[in-house]
Structure formats: C-alpha cells, structure tokens
C-alpha cells in the first residue's frame, strides 16, 4: 500500500462518555472491550491532519517510499539500473544514510505552516517498512536517525515543535513489519507460529515510542501479513489504554493485524485514500529536511481558505445530507450543539465548489420562518423557498466574496430539517 495523500475516515465509532466495558483503566485485551473505548473527542473535531513521510527513501527520491522493496524485494530492472547509474558499485539502500543529511530540518517552521493551514494534528513516520527508526530506538542500534543520517532525534524534535502550538496534536506513524528484518522473516517462514519479532522488536519499540514521546496518535501500518494475535495487538492496546502515559487521550487507527482494517481499533482508515470523515494530507520531505515549495503552497492556500471558512469544518459533524440533491457540487456539515457560539449552534453549512451564475439552488435545506443565511467572509444573503421544495439563495457578485476561489461556505440557521 502506498500512502501518498491519503484520507482517513471514521467509518463507525461510539459517541459519548459511557465506557461500556467498565471504568477507565480496565480494558481487557479483547476487541469487544477495546473497540468500546470512546474515541477522544478532539479527534473528530479536528477534521484535518497532516502526515509527514521522511526517511531513507527521500534520498533516491524516485519511485516511492517503497523504493527498497522494488529494488531488493522485487528486483525491478529499472531500480537496479538506477542504482548502477547513480551510485557507487558497493552502495546499498543502507548507505543512503550518508545522504539523509537533514541539514535544513526545522520542525518549528513546519508547525507554523501547519497551524496556518488549519491542520489540527501532525503525524511523522517514526518507522517505515525499511525499519529505519527516526528516533534513537534501543531496539534498532545503528539503524536509526541519531547514530546515522541526520544524527538527530527527529521524532523528538518534531513532537516538541508541534506541541509548542496550542492547537496541534502530534502523532507517530509506525510500521509493524519490516520487509527484510531477519527475525521477522524467521517468524514468517514458519507461518507466524513463533512471535520472536513482536516480542523482541515491535512491541517493546512501540512502548519505547509511547513512553518517550507520549504521542496523541499511533498510526499503525504494515500489519497485514500476520494476524493481530501474532502482533500481540490487543495486549498492546490494553496496555496503551490502561497503563500508558497517554491512556486517556491517545487515538489509534485500525491496522493491527490481518483483517482488522475497517473492523477494529480506534478510528478506521479502511483503505488508503478512503474518504470520509477526517482528512489526513500526506507530504514528503527531502533528504535535506525541506518541504518542497509546492507542498508549502498547497498548505498556505488551504490556510488562506480556512481563515475564512474554518467555521464550516472544525467541530462539525455530518448532516443528514452529505451533498446536495440538486447541486451535487455542494457539500454539507453541521455544527454540533454545544460547539461554538450559541447563535451558530445547530447551523448547517453548505460548502459550494462552483460559483453560480446568479442564484444558488439547493434541494436539501428546508428553510423555516427564522432561517438566516450568511456567507462566510461576506455577510447575510437573501433566500426564498421554492414551490417544489428546496431554496434559492442570492449570492453576491463573485468578486465581493472574500474567500479564496476554491469554495464558499454558507451558514444556514434554524433550518426546519436541521
């Protein structure tokens, strides 16, 4: 699976404060018990996160982050040729550490950019499938970013920088398996009837990450070859929810063993680029630790848009309609009761992606006597109920709307079908 721009979702979760398996701190290592843990509310309110891919694959910078698999696992001729053409004969993937310099790595700048973009959580690849750890893992001696490459505790610096921002949560991406780890391959060779690798590597390493950096999110992956019982996932999660320093706030995804995706865990990713309910935007970092300007551009523009329109995104829930019945390019959200100022609570937001020629006709909203419609970044606009249902909204000339022209948001109060 490739993770180049994926969207994360919550397919299903339990809302509320009642923990049906008992009180905080007594989860059992079973999916029934673990799945019943309420998702910490910050996660659904956040809506937008950013996933940062940085590792040795940034050095060749071609193909994808699965470079080593294509080279050594699949022995693709184009990759073998690329190595012959551009590196010394004795060079291997492991020698890329020399060029993972990270000389421009400045996570404080990233945090500022993410904050501007309206992003509420940021996740860094602590370890990808190549096994190279971006923190000084004691279980990965000399195959980590402190003893080679940038010679920095990248995860540590990243987490510290993100946490300086009040509204940014920080998490780690962690691949359970490693393509070429010798111990993993011993377990794999006998059909995962032994669990040497989880016992000596992945579980203690995950605990090391949790204890050192207290992540708000653990974004697990690389689970799919073996069952959750091999990974000891339910025991790890029970420890995480009961005893770990982040027991009350941590959020995890659903990649904890073959068959768990879309079924078990915290929030559900299902498949890569699955689309609804939170969006996790992936960006890649160069070997020298920069975000290429094109990524910065997209985040700056997202932030410019969010500055006007965030009210229709953060802290919202799905409405009874997702997109409009007449105008399919218009998408809906709804502000939760208890979220935001009193006069906007219960409002329905319509995000329209194409500016209409004169009036915007929407089929889903039913206006009441007291309905008012505001265009974010503009002000009140007039509307009338159509005889066949739906409403007609008079939008101002496009140049009068201050939102960047990627989409516009209407706040509709007191709809009779809100």
């Amino acid at each position, binding site marked *: 699976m490739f993770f180049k721009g994926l969207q994360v979702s919550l397919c299903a979760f339990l809302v509320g404060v009642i923990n049906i398996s008992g009180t905080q701190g007594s989860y059992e290592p079973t999916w029934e018990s673990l799945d019943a843990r309420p998702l910490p509310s910050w996660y659904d309110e956040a809506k937008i996160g950013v996933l940062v891919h940085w590792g040795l694959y940034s050095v060749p910078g071609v193909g994808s982050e699965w470079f080593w698999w294509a080279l050594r696992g699949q022995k693709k001729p184009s990759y073998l040729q690329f190595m012959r053409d551009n590196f010394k004969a004795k060079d291997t993937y492991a020698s890329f550490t020399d060029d993972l310099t990270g000389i421009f790595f400045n996570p404080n700048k990233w945090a500022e950019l993410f904050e501007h973009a309206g992003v509420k959580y940021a996740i860094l690849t602590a370890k990808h499938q190549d096994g190279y750890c971006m923190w000084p893992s004691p279980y990965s001696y000399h195959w980590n970013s402190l003893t080679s490459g940038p010679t920095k505790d990248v995860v540590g610096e990243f987490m510290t920088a993100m946490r300086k921002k009040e509204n940014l949560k920080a998490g780690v991406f962690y691949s359970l398996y490693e393509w070429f780890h010798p111990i993993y391959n011993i377990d794999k060779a006998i059909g995962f009837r032994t669990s040497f690798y989880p016992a000596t590597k992945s579980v203690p390493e995950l605990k090391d990450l949790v204890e050192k950096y207290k992540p708000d999110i653990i974004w697990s992956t690389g689970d799919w070859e073996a069952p959750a019982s091999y990974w000891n996932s339910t025991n790890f999660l029970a420890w995480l929810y009961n005893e770990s320093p982040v027991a009350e706030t941590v959020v995890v995804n659903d990649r904890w063993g073959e068959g768990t995706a879309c079924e078990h865990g915290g929030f559900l990713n299902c498949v890569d680029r699955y689309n609804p309910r939170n969006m996790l935007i992936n960006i890649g970092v160069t070997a*020298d630790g920069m975000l290429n300007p094109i990524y910065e551009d997209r985040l700056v523009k997202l932030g410019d848009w969010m500055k006007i329109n965030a009210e229709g995104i953060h802290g919202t829930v799905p409405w009874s309609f997702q997109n409009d019945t007449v105008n399919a390019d218009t998408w809906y959200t709804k502000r939760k009761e208890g979220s935001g100022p009193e006069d906007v609570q219960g409002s329905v937001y319509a995000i329209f992606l194409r500016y209409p020629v004169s009036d915007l006709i929407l089929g889903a909203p039913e206006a009441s006597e007291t309905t008012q419609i505001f265009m974010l970044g503009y002000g009140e606009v007039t509307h009338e109920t159509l005889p066949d249902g739906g409403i007609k909204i008079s939008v101002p000339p496009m140049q009068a709307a201050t939102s960047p022209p990627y989409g516009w948001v209407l706040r509709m109060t007191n709809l009779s079908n809100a």
Partner: protein
Amino acid sequence: MGDTLPVIRREVTMIFFFATKHHYFINFHESQIVIFFQKSHLKTLYIVLTSKHHEGFTNFPSPYSFNWNSVDVGPNRDLVGELSKAIKAHRGMKFGLYYSLYEWFNPLYQKDKANGWTTRDFVVNKMTPELKYLVETYQPEVIWSDGDWEPQYTYWDSPGFLAWLYNDSPVRDTVVVNDRWGSTMACSHGGYYTCTDRFNPGTLQPHKWENCWTIDKQSWGYRRNAHIWEYCSIEELIQVLAETVSCGGNLLLNVGPSHDGTIKPIFEERLLQMGVWLRVNGEAIYHSKPWLHQNDTEVSDVWYTKRTFEDGSDKVYAILLDWPATGTLVLGAPKFCTNTIVNLLGWPQPITWTASTRGPEIVLPPRQQVVTDWAWVLVFQGLCNDKS
C-alpha cells in the same frame, strides 16, 4: 538554519532563462519538452541557457576549459548541445546562450586585472576563442553576455567580436545580443538593453529592452532551502509581464534547475500557469507594441498594449490586474468613438459600454463566468485615439 551556507555536493550551476513574450519549459528529457510545448500552445519563444557562469565551469565541452566542463566532470553530458538540439527540433523556438565574460578566479583574468587591464591574456587565450567556438558549434540566436562590468569594452574587444558576429559568423543574419559588453556599456550600446537585473522601469523606453526577472525572488540558481513565500505568485508574474510588455520590453523569466537536471514542481506550475493565461490572453502580448499610454490615467494598474493587423486595423489591449469590485470600469486613457467595440479575451460576446458622467462605463460580465484567472484583457477596436 541561520545564515551559514550548507556544503552542496555534486553541484552543477545551471540557469535556464525562460522567455516570455515567449515562454517555455525545458529539461533534459526531450519527451517532456514535447509535452510541455504541446501544453503551452505558444507560437514563438526563446530559451537562454547559462553556457558558463562566473565560476567558469562550462556546460559544454569547451576546448578552452579542459576538465572544468560538464562532459569531463559532473553530469558527463554536453548540456548546451543536448538542449540546443531539443529546442531546434521545434519550429518557432529560438535557442540562446548566456555567457559570462569574466571568471572570478581565472588566473589569466586575475593577472590582467592586477596589471590594470594593460595585458589581455584572458581575452586572447580564453574568452574570445571560447565565445567564437560556442557560436560556431551551437549557433545560438541570442547571446546574453554578462560579467563584463570590471574593465572597459576595449579590454574585451567587444566591437571586434560583435563585428565578427554580425559579418562572418554562421548566425550573422538572425542573432540578437544584449548590452553587457564592458563597463558603462549597459543601457547604452549593443543589441537590446537589459540595464540592471530585474529592470522594470514602468515607463516607455526609447530602445528595445528586456526585463530579466526571476521566479525565485532571491536567487537565479536553484536553492534547496527556498520557501514558497520566496517565489513570485502567478499574479505577481503576470503583473511584471504586463508592466514590461506595455513599456516595450520583453520578459525573460529565470528558472533554476536542481543539480539532477529537474525543474521543481513550483517552477513547472508557474510556467504552466503562464501558459494557461497566455492561451487566452497571448493575443495582447505576442507581436504587440506599446500604445500611446502605458498604464491608465485613472486606474493605474491597467496596462496597455497595441497591435496593428495586416489589413491595417488596430486593436488596443487593456490588461486588468484586478477585477473591479463594482463589476464596471471607467478608464481614462481610451477615447471612445460611437463605433468603438469592446471585447474581453475568452468571452464570446462584445462587452457593453454606456456613456456616464465619469466617461464611458464598461460593464463586465459576471466574474464567475469568465474563464481567465489572475488578470483579464479588454480589447478595444475603433478607438478615436488608437492610431496614436
């Protein structure tokens, strides 16, 4: 980072200058050149590559720069030759070369300098034969000279070289040169004037000139540590284009490839955006001349160009950098006649205008229905002052 510069390994200094009035994208894969050419839909353009910058490293196998050239070291490729071939395979594309006369640390140059320019060993043994070799081997149609400013033109023997170029060289009939041929030459002698880097006077110039502008606001060469806010936005680039062309200049837009020969996506995007804009609005740019007014007397961010067509008819173009808040526009410069016709490029019908107390009021169509972004072009036919 602070201000310390990192050690940059495998660095090859290459700068591509891109031209608009004519713009274009390039890298060293010809297939990509074709794709971008097709996408940009532009008729004529010129591309200028740095054949040698001030460090003296030549991007071609100069016999006068043994083992300090791109074939012997670095990419092991004749970058000038490959690019020249790729460009010349396309009709309408012109190939040009940037060449720095001086070299910071060349011992012959330093000796001549120490002698107060009374000796000319560097020019005789290095610069003149190399520049002639470059012209004869690659036949560039633009020679963009630079690094001329320390000694007088007499040291460089610029008139001697230019006389050879114009009389005897293989490109004598088509070649164009700039104005950097010795101290005090810029802005007064040579072919077209470049004056200073990023020259953008905002007023009509008596001599043909060129604004050599950078997409990266800080550097001509590639910077790995550049941020997005250090690059020009497409709005800024189109503004510079409008200001330049209205005043009779060409825009030569600089792009810096990275050491591995790629042009980073942010540069690609700016060039593609230019292409998108020019596909609709290129009529106001290519083959245009300055008009009577450069920018409007009432609305100063409206810039004018003019074209005369084969049948003798004239069109005046007004480039609007902002869409007016009211959706209507009263301009000071155009004098309307009763039969004046107004069009908007990319809009199918004529634009209505009505007499008002402030002058003729142009009523623009709804902004959301107009295909162009970033800037818009009104076309006037039959103005009372179009012949001026």
